């Protein structure tokens, strides 16, 4: 059913259609509207046979989900930013125990300095935690990915994060097609756990494993994610057959066939990038886009196929690994490795802490990569003057004070 609806509310309706049995809620901006929405659907009886539990922290939220999932219930929670970091220990635990929990991330920056706006820092911080990570481009895809995520998680017995850009998707009111319950029921069968706590068949879950088998346990996790690379496109195909639209999969290409430059990005920024591409193509710039949906598992072969014919790759990403550069660019580099004539890779970090990524800045970036390529990581729209002043000042003064406050003060006094 078509609705003009807030992204969070649409996701809440989609999650309810998946018939979760346990929902753990702890508020953190910008994911709050999602759990509020599902909570209301439990209260008003739309979502039956579901326990909505208000917990005391994100660490407890995921821990309750772990207990529920191990006891055979379909478990869901949502978080963002600091919340994901606060539950980090449980994030690794849930995947290590092979529990198919689905969690939404309303992607948000990590402090300090505290910042509630969108980037992908927190998702990247858990990229090695053994969860599958799917990034939604639009609110429609956010809705659809949740339905696919429960099926993916339960078929692989492995948890899934659905990553949706905070505010840009969670708070945007758009037209979304909310699926019908009977279709979701057809697509997503009831959860049949591979291991479960049951007094009729007592097993111990979470025993200690030493050096003799730990490598094998981790290998099998890695192997499972490699297997998921085959399953994710199948689930997207099945979804398309039933719901009549394409959502999910490993990646999506846009005008890449003849492109000499291909942009790689994840999440909602891909819409802006596509608009930029359309305008640049009118100038004769042969440019295309690869939208990466599945960040974990990372589709190395599919990326290599998609990028092989290009001369230049520009990775635009909303996170930075301090001291290294762009983590997505680093991963894309892996996909280009061992190619006979690999395209030149350009890394750009953009949109940190909610900074708008504009078409003008993107167009300049893409043009610059051809005529004036840069080494290392480029920070899009960096205020170089204010950075230089801060570097200069902190060199002169030992007790130069907190960086964030100094920058803000400089900006204020300059105007």
């Amino acid at each position, binding site marked *: 059913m078509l609705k003009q609806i807030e992204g969070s509310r649409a996701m809440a309706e989609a999650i309810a259609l998946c018939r979760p049995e346990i929902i753990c809620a702890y508020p953190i901006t910008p994911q709050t509207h999602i759990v509020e929405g599902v909570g209301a659907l439990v209260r008003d009886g739309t979502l039956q046979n579901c326990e909505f539990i208000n917990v*005391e922290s994100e660490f407890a939220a995921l821990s309750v989900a772990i207990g529920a999932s*191990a006891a055979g219930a379909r478990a869901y929670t949502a978080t963002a930013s600091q919340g994901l970091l606060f539950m980090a220990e449980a994030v690794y635990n849930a995947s290590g125990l092979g529990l198919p929990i689905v969690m939404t991330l309303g992607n948000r920056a990590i402090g300090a300095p505290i910042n509630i706006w969108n980037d992908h820092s927190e998702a990247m911080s858990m990229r090695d935690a053994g969860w599958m990570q799917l990034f939604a481009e639009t609110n429609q895809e956010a809705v659809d990915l949740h339905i696919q995520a429960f099926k993916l998680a339960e078929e692989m017995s492995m948890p899934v994060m659905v990553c949706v850009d905070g505010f840009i998707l969670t708070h945007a009111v758009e037209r979304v097609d909310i699926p019908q319950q009977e279709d979701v029921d057809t697509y997503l069968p009831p959860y049949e756990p591979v291991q479960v706590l049951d007094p009729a068949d007592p097993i111990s879950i979470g025993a200690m494993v030493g050096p003799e088998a730990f490598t094998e346990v981790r290998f099998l996790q890695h192997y499972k994610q490699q297997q998921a690379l085959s399953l994710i496109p199948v689930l997207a195909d099945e979804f398309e057959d039933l719901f009549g639209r394409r959502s999910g999969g490993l990646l999506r290409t846009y005008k890449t066939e003849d492109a000499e430059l291909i942009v790689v990005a994840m999440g909602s920024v891909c819409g802006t990038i596509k608009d930029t591409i359309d305008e640049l193509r009118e100038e004769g710039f042969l440019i295309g886009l690869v939208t990466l949906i599945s960040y974990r598992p990372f589709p190395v072969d599919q990326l290599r196929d998609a990028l092989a014919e290009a001369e230049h790759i520009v990775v635009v990403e909303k996170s930075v690994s301090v001291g290294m550069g762009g983590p997505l660019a680093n991963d894309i580099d892996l996909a280009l490795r061992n190619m006979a004539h690999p395209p030149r890779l350009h890394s750009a970090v953009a949109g940190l802490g909610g900074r708008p990524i504009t078409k003008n800045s993107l167009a300049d970036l893409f043009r610059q990569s051809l005529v004036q390529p840069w080494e290392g990581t480029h920070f899009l729209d960096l205020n170089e003057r204010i950075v230089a002043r801060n570097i200069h000042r902190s060199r002169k003064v030992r007790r130069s004070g907190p960086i964030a406050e100094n920058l803000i003060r400089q900006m204020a006094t300059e105007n």
Partner: protein
Amino acid sequence: MEKDNPMTSETTPGDGVQKLHFYQKGTFTVGNRLVSSDERSVQSSIDRSNALTCGHRACQGCGEALGARYAIDTAMEAAGGNLIAVNATGCLEVFTTPYPESAWQLPWLHSLFGNAAAVATGVAAAMRVKGRREVRVVAQGGDGGTTDIGLQCLSGMFERNDDVLYICYDNEGYMNTGVQRSSATPPAARTATTPVLGDEPGNVFGTGKSVPKIAVAHEIPYVATATVADLRDLEAKVKKAMSIHGARYIQIDVPCPLGWGAASHETIHLARLAVETGFYPIFEAEHGRVTSVRKIRHQVPVTEYLKLQKRFAHLFKGDKVDPRVARLQARCDANIAEYGLLDAA
């Protein structure tokens, strides 16, 4: 040989009847089967579940293994075998489940150090939503996993009144990691992080917390302290806790021979002295009010308790009596006064 045969030696007919001494008769030991069936302990029954069975790797004289065995078997009986246990990281987890072995004969889940209460909440919620209300849930952990790192999850489980019985095996320190101080470590006790060095050797006075009191402050349906020195009382408290739905908390004093520096055969003795000195008050509370206490018949001086443990040995070095012994005695006296553990003579 022949002359020793009672059938051929010169005996009176009465001597031919073997004189049996029923040494259990008239006693109240936990294994006694010569009492009426309703007075028998769970552990004396051949039908006990052996939920924590033999073969685990606990130290000799481990109070935690003993406490867990009695507590979980009693909970198993009360639940008719429909019990799921969630375990915090710690000694109990490590010594019972070295991969690929498990000493648990009930469904058992270990997740993390600080989240046992929350995981148990999840299990209980799953059982409710699955319509399996007959299945009960216990969470268990040591004092570190309960009073320190797990306190937030524990408090959350309490205030939501989730249907979980949380059992804390309190051995007054982080024994699994090598005897470090926890917030349940008593003052003056030597641990690896409160060494016998400096002006104030051992654990500092004026620190620590009572989680049973914190539990009572949550006004949950049932809170109790118990001891491995009184296993019948422990069983009774677990049984009572299992008769109630909602959040319940039992904290059991479980001496640790390794961490306390005590002989392994002294575990029960030490636990008893902890009660009789007033060091470890034994009480029950319901909905925020203390409802019963275990009285002390004769108060034992705290030195008798302290002197059996190397963790307090520094208090008894040299000729002078360390003034902190008096402070520990005052602590016991305060417990006795607060809970009314001694009847007026």
